[in-house]
């Protein structure tokens, strides 16, 4: 996700980026733009390739860690390909470690290559699409969180003012904001709570792609 409000922001050329990557902040920016933007596909990939859903969150972290640390030494030419190769290696490592199947018995790494193209079609994400994703993510927030985010981000009131207006403590406002950030990140980047394959529509408990359960 480009995380910009408008589409006119051009990409820096590769040379400029490499130069800029010497500065810590710019590597962070590069990471957010080139790697985090593929989180939804990464989660789908991990979820399909790995049986234990409660390990997906940790695995995501480990993939990011490996990519970030490699990029700190040298930026990969193709960030997306590098991300998925890293994910594939991580899975191979875990398979080996857990001895679920023996590598010699024909566990097929190539099968995962095919999967990447299938689950991660190239798509253009413009400002238009980002705005609609943001609107959807916002609507998935619990009502109080949504209200706090609205007052902070749209009305640009301070946390203190929000607290006074809603008649709650400032610490509570901070808590709502922290919660909202995590929920927005999950909805925007990776996992869509509403898409959890729980089967029964009126099941009061749904599961996100990380295997965490949420009450409806």
């Amino acid at each position, binding site marked *: 996700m480009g995380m910009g409000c408008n589409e006119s922001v051009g990409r820096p050329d590769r040379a400029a980026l490499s130069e800029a990557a010497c500065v810590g902040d710019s590597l*962070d920016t590069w990471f957010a733009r080139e790697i985090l933007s593929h989180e939804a596909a990464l989660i789908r990939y991990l979820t399909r390739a790995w049986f234990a859903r409660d390990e997906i969150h940790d695995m995501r972290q480990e993939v990011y*860690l490996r990519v970030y640390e490699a990029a700190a030494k040298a930026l990969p030419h193709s960030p997306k390909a590098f991300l998925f190769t890293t994910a594939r290696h991580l899975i191979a490592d875990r398979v080996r470690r857990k001895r679920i199947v023996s590598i010699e018995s024909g566990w097929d790494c190539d099968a995962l290559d095919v999967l990447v193209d299938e689950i991660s079609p190239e798509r253009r994400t413009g400002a238009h699409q980002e705005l609609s994703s943001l609107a959807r993510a*916002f609507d998935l927030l619990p009502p109080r969180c949504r209200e706090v985010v*609205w007052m902070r981000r749209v009305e640009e009131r301070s946390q203190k003012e929000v607290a006074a207006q809603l008649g709650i403590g400032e610490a509570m406002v901070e808590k709502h*904001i922290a919660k909202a950030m995590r929920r927005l990140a999950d909805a925007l980047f990776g996992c869509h709570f509403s898409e959890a394959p729980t089967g029964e529509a009126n099941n009061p408990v749904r599961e996100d792609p990380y295997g965490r359960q949420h009450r409806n």
Partner: protein
Amino acid sequence: MEDSIGIEEIAADWLARRDRGAWSDTDQAELTAWMDASTAHRIAYIRLEAVWESARCLKTLALESPLGDAPRPRVLPYLPVCRTVKLLVVSDDSTSPSLEAEPPEQ
């Protein structure tokens, strides 16, 4: 490795605390120390910070929503967002999107 969900929670707490304002040099030093302690910390922070920054764009959505003093919408106007913005800019009539609009896809 530290628990990734726990790290994410701490990162969110940091961002919310910074969002409070009155951010001192001491606060910044503590945050920097936390981020430098582990790349996992840094990544969790970058990820949530990007999201919180992008939430500013809600304002773009709000521009086309004729809120006034009305209660905040449960559902924001949906697609076509850009077209709607343009429509509202170029026309005087009340072609405002319905607050009850359903998302086009789910």
